[in-house]
């Protein structure tokens, strides 16, 4: 028997495969394709206190082995989620982690407080959205700002708090250490890499927001490097993500030091990707005669 269960900052998961925020809706969108009860955790689409309509214009562009998006945190707001979506997710025996975003530090705190409700297992704090002008990346690229946001959320929340880090920084280790110092229970990385595409026929940017976040297999080597750097420098668990398409990719992140992984863009290509990756990790462990997924974490031979 292979044990795939992991505990991330007190959140018990059947396996280390989570969904990456923004790529899995509320989870319910995928229920025709897989049993949500078999996932490690569901991380829902980034949420704001009030409903948000997102960015105007074209929001998605495919690039080489990846895609750019500038959705801009479109979501129905916290109340709608708590009243309508959360009760449906409660039917599945899978922890629900809510990704939160705010325009001000106070708003992060207020939203975190609002989510102290049954059925929410943890918060992932989006201090790294590249697509909203206020908030998001502003908080995610300055260590002191990032720490203030996490500190405010920790004060307001009874739940485990995961800080989602932006790769759009010079020194990601410094960011991770800054949020760890103010009590972040885990860190997740990477969010998307800021990118751009231009239509040479019209000479205009492809995306309505001009720039957007790059995700998909194209970003995986960058993500893996950052996960490895951060995992070697912090004591809290690291959730690794960025271009994971298959079990082999996920195993790389575990070896680099991630205690769990999140699958993002792959969900768009293969709606069953999460479940297949969880199965693939289990097979890899069995083949190697390992009994526990934790035996892989950080085991890269440098």
């Amino acid at each position: 028997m292979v044990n795939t269960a992991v505990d991330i900052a007190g959140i018990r998961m059947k396996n280390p495969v989570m969904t990456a925020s923004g790529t899995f809706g509320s989870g319910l969108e995928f229920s025709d394709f897989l049993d949500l009860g078999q996932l490690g955790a569901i991380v829902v689409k980034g949420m704001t206190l009030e409903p948000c309509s997102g960015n105007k214009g074209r929001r998605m562009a495919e690039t080489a082995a990846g895609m750019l998006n500038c959705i801009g945190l479109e979501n129905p707001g916290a109340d709608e989620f708590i009243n309508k979506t959360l009760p449906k997710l409660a039917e599945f025996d899978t922890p629900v982690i809510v990704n939160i975003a705010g325009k001000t530090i106070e708003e992060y705190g207020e939203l975190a407080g609002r989510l102290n409700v049954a059925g929410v297992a943890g918060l992932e704090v989006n201090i790294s959205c590249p697509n909203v002008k206020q908030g998001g990346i502003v908080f995610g690229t300055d260590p002191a700002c990032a720490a203030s946001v996490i500190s405010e959320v920790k004060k307001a929340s009874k739940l485990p708090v995961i800080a989602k880090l932006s790769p759009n920084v010079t020194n990601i280790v410094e960011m991770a250490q800054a949020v760890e110092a103010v009590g972040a229970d885990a860190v997740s990385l990477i969010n998307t890499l800021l990118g751009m595409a231009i239509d040479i026929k019209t000479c205009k940017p492809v995306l309505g927001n001009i720039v957007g976040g790059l995700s998909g297999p194209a970003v995986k080597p960058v993500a893996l490097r950052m996960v490895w750097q951060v995992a070697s420098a912090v004591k809290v668990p690291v959730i690794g993500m960025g271009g994971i398409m298959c079990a082999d990719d996920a195993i790389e992140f575990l070896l680099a030091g991630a205690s769990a992984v999140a699958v993002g863009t792959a969900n768009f290509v293969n709606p069953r990707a999460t479940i297949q990756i969880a199965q693939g990790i289990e097979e890899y462990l069995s083949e190697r005669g390992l009994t526990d997924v934790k035996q892989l974490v950080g085991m890269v031979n440098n």
Partner: protein
Amino acid sequence: MPKIVEIATVIDNIRITDDVKKLVLSSPKIATQARPGQFIHLKIGGSYDPLLRRPLSIAEANSDKGTLGIYYRVVGRGTELMAQLKSGDMVDNVGPLGQGFDLNCKRPLLIGGGMGIAPLVFLTQELCPRPIEVVLAGRTNQEMFWQDCFARSCQDVHITTDDGSLGFKGNALAVLPNLLDKKFDMIYVCGPKPMMSGVAKLASRAGIPCQVSLEEHMACGIGACLSCTCAAGDGTRKKICTDGPVFWAEEVVW
């Protein structure tokens, strides 16, 4: 209706014009469930580049044979790969996706522009034997390969081309005022957005219910990524992939 992942087999990939082909797939589960106006999401090849699936509207669904017919214009790397598919090749198919047309009518008028004509082929099949009139609009007669798809099942086929190389010279909107004197009780339109908004306006003025089929770049096709959302008339946001692609014209903020 549950969405299905199915490995489809290419039956045929027929050249229609210089840049348009018709892909025929054996995809029995999806073919038996598909409704006019719905689409499939095809992953062509196992490579990460291009990465995403391609949304394609269903032009034919034969539940007896278990086949789907897809017309596509070769415009980029995804469709270039599609164009190379050969009989016997496998493609990963997700569908049927989205909300199709409401077929509740007695005397329908169908209006299609360019590749937007594709879903109207399937719609015509399902509306038959009701008396159907259709307006097919294109840039030139080269694009008017659709006539055979409509000739047998439609009472009247009106053709417009921008250059006048076939049918009426002009766009669909130009022939519409005369047609609307007849007693249609439903208008279906799929094509470029300016054409659809123009038709929606004329339909509203004539008091005829109108359904439009919208298009937007999308990544997931199942309501998760929010790439394709749009503002609706009631102040809400709609997802073109799951709330649409077919909407009532008055739901849309043009």
